């Protein structure tokens, strides 16, 4: 077969000259590096020092052990640091606070009304005229805010391919939705679910397990009254126990399994993509100050709102998603989300 040397030289030159835009290579490398566990990011630059890593690691473990022992013998009232069992199951590096600067607000202004079937709102402006008559929780002096970087189109495509390969189900992935406070999600087509005679929770667990979609975050499992929806509500670590994540509408956020077909035993799932988080500690205002910021009064006896719960809510802004602590106040009068991050660190 007689080929064309001249054409082949031109092809070689053409392909050799093809380069991505200036800066692309370093940008992409930084994105890849960000996916490494923090202790692998130093790489070859610090290899000589890494000879001492085992000894340093041992010292660190001993130091942590001493600190833990000291903390647990201080008596009642000590605030335990977040446990690994409840920590977000994502790679995270704790930045100096408040590393994210001024946080985006869930909704500019005072109270953010919560509208959902669970929390029917009374008429009138959010929070207006409502009083809180329950017991306010004692808030910690600070809490972490967690942040993810919004994945690009290529990342979403890659995530879909990876998940689809693992799950064996057709699925779609979607970017964050700022309007509904939803992080990047996957959503599967219907797949076979185990026999439902064991109940909704066991069926949903079996479906997720069979398709390698079990959540990697700490969760609280709830079954809807219909028995056809199981929610794995995400939990964040808190000093006094796990803290639920809720949507701006007050509903539990996390992974959802819908048992869609009671005859053929199929199910589908929708849940957050497994994104790496970074975190930064933010000072908090008191619960009473949060009520004031939400233009809510306090009163004993009959009041529109009588229950307060510390929650995390996702705020999507500027190419990031921020899980920010809020107070969810509920009662016969409706529901309100009140900001707890210190005023100077929350955008208006």
């Amino acid at each position, binding site marked *: 077969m007689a080929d064309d040397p001249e*054409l082949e030289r031109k092809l070689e*030159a053409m392909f050799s000259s*093809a380069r*991505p835009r200036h800066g*692309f*290579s370093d940008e992409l490398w930084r994105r*890849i590096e960000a996916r490494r566990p923090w202790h692998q990011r130093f790489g070859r630059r610090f290899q000589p020092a890494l000879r001492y890593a085992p000894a340093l690691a041992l010292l660190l473990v001993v130091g942590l052990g001493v600190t833990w022992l000291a903390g647990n013998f201080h008596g009642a009232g000590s605030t335990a640091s977040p446990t690994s069992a409840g920590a977000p199951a994502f790679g995270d590096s704790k930045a100096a606070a408040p590393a994210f600067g001024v946080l985006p607000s869930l909704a500019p202004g005072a109270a953010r009304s919560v509208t959902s079937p669970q929390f029917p709102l009374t008429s009138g402006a959010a929070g207006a005229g409502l009083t809180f008559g329950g017991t306010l929780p004692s808030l910690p002096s600070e809490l972490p805010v967690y942040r993810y970087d919004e994945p690009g189109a290529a*990342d979403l495509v890659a995530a879909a*391919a990876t998940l689809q390969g693992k799950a064996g189900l057709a699925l779609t992935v979607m970017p964050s939705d700022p309007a509904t406070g939803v992080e990047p999600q996957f959503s599967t087509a219907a797949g076979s679910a185990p026999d439902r005679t064991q109940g909704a929770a066991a069926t949903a667990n079996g479906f997720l397990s069979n398709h390698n979609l079990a959540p990697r975050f700490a969760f609280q499992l709830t079954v809807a009254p219909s028995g056809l929806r199981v929610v794995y509500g995400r939990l964040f670590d808190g000093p006094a126990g796990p803290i639920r994540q809720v949507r701006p509408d007050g509903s539990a956020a996390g992974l959802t399994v819908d048992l869609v077909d009671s005859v053929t035993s199929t199910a589908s799932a929708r849940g957050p993509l497994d994104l790496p988080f970074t975190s930064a500690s933010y000072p908090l205002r008191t619960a009473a100050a949060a009520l004031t910021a939400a233009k809510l009064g306090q009163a004993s006896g009959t009041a529109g709102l009588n229950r307060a719960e510390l929650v995390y809510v996702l705020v999507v802004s500027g190419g990031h998603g921020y899980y920010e602590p809020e107070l969810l106040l509920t009662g016969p009068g409706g529901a309100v989300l009140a900001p707890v991050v210190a005023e100077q660190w929350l955008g208006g």
Partner: protein
Amino acid sequence: MPPRPEFEDLYREFLPRIYGYALAQLRDAAEAEDVTAQVFVNAFRAYDRFEPTAATPAAWLFRIARNVILDLHRRAGVRDRVEQEVGRSLGAGPDPSEVAEDRILFAELLVAVRRLPDRQREVVALRHRSDLTFLEIGDLMDCSEDAAKMLYHRALKALRGELRPDG
């Protein structure tokens, strides 16, 4: 057993090659960058499982790249994309904004490569970007070494006809 190279070394060496391979098969530079990014993200995630005895780094990476592009084509609808692409490229000529000024000489050649049938286009891109032998190219494309050589020969013939339409 050959040692597994540092991933960053692999990345620096093969990024322009993977990009060039993708550029020849996709609509534009932006899409080629997206695919290149996805290839290296996928490769990074799978690198712990890469066995240098089972495949060379080039063969391993270009297999990942091939799969990413195949997935993209499947999602986009290959037939529609090719028709749109051919329709666009039958216009006045290459888009100068896609290549640097000093490389506009190759723009016509790139357009001609993109107009080749899928497998001819792919074998040309692999031949000139991957340093794989025709045996390895055939393995990647699920054909024999001779079939891969034949595809390349036909691609060159088609390119000659494209670049010199009077014969």
